[in-house]
């Protein structure tokens, strides 16, 4: 293993996320390579500093007040009618209350599954030419980034089509059509 290969794996090695083979290869390499060993020590130091900072921040949190707040809210929690029903159904003499609807639901699901499994297979839905021409091709663009000089978004109402037009003077002279 070369340093170039090892350096990309060091963070994963440090976090124990490599498989056994890679773990062994990185361990062997770092044992012999001074620069990778230094890199590992640097990671250890960073982790130690982060841990110390987190522990220090946790010490400042008042957990007593935190639990008091939770306790207060727990008191105000309402039990839903469904949970109340389940609770009542839990007693042996009323267990049939929950069992009957459960069996009915299971039977309905089984019937539906049987229907789906025995239904004739549907043909593939490859759009033909007419479909493509008549489809609303207007796209909604949530984000757009580019590494070229300009990208123009065209929304043509006639064909209901969205076009992203890339204009890059470094590779060509033609702009937006």
């Amino acid at each position, binding site marked *: 293993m070369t340093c170039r290969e090892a350096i990309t794996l060091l963070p994963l090695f440090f976090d124990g996320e490599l498989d056994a083979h890679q773990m062994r290869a990185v361990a062997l390499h770092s044992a012999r390579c001074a620069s990778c060993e230094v890199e590992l020590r640097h990671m250890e130091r960073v982790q130690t500093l982060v841990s110390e900072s987190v522990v220090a921040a946790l010490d400042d949190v008042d957990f007593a007040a935190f639990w008091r707040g939770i306790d207060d809210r727990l008191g105000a929690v309402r039990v839903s009618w469904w949970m109340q029903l389940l609770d009542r159904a839990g007693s042996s003499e009323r267990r049939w209350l929950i069992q009957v609807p459960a069996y009915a639901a299971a039977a309905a699901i089984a019937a539906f599954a049987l229907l*789906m499994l025995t239904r004739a*297979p*549907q*043909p*593939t*839905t*490859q*759009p*033909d*030419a*007419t*479909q*493509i*021409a008549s*489809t*609303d*091709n*207007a*796209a*909604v*663009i*949530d*984000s*757009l*980034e*580019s*590494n*070229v000089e300009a*990208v123009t978004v*065209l929304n*043509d109402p*006639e*064909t209901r*089509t*969205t*076009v*992203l*037009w*890339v*204009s*890059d003077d470094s*590779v*060509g002279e*033609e702009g937006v*059509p």
Partner: protein
Amino acid sequence: MSCVPQVAVATLLAVAGMHAAGWAQGHTAGVPTSPAAAEEAVEVRIRAVLASNSSKEFDTRLASMQRHFNTLFPYSSYRLVKEEQQRVPWGGKVAFDIPGGRYVIVMPREFKNNRVSMKVMVIEGARPIVDTAISLRNHGTFLVGGPRQPEGVLILSIGADTLP
């Protein structure tokens, strides 16, 4: 005269064979066989079209897009140079090589309100010339144009179809 029944039988057998072949094709061409598969897959299709003013030739394979191209672009010739479709699971990633050493990466994300949301990247060399997140109506197509080719301009048609 005596060959008439034989012809009829042969015709019947041929028709039955064609039906069987069509049925088999419909069932082996990747049509999902379970509801779970249908929910987890989308077919991404891409067409790379070379547009130029060098002639007035319109590739007949692009007939479905002719009105779009004539309305949207100022070119007289359109030639399909690559067509490919690949099935990809939701949340997966699919890559297409396109002319000019470029490639397109499509990552379908979700299907909601009959629209397919996906991330599309067009990469030229090491740089993304388009990196976009869009939502497109199911079976819809959107176009990315402008990358230069020696013979003209490349127009990409990118579409998505949920399966089945």
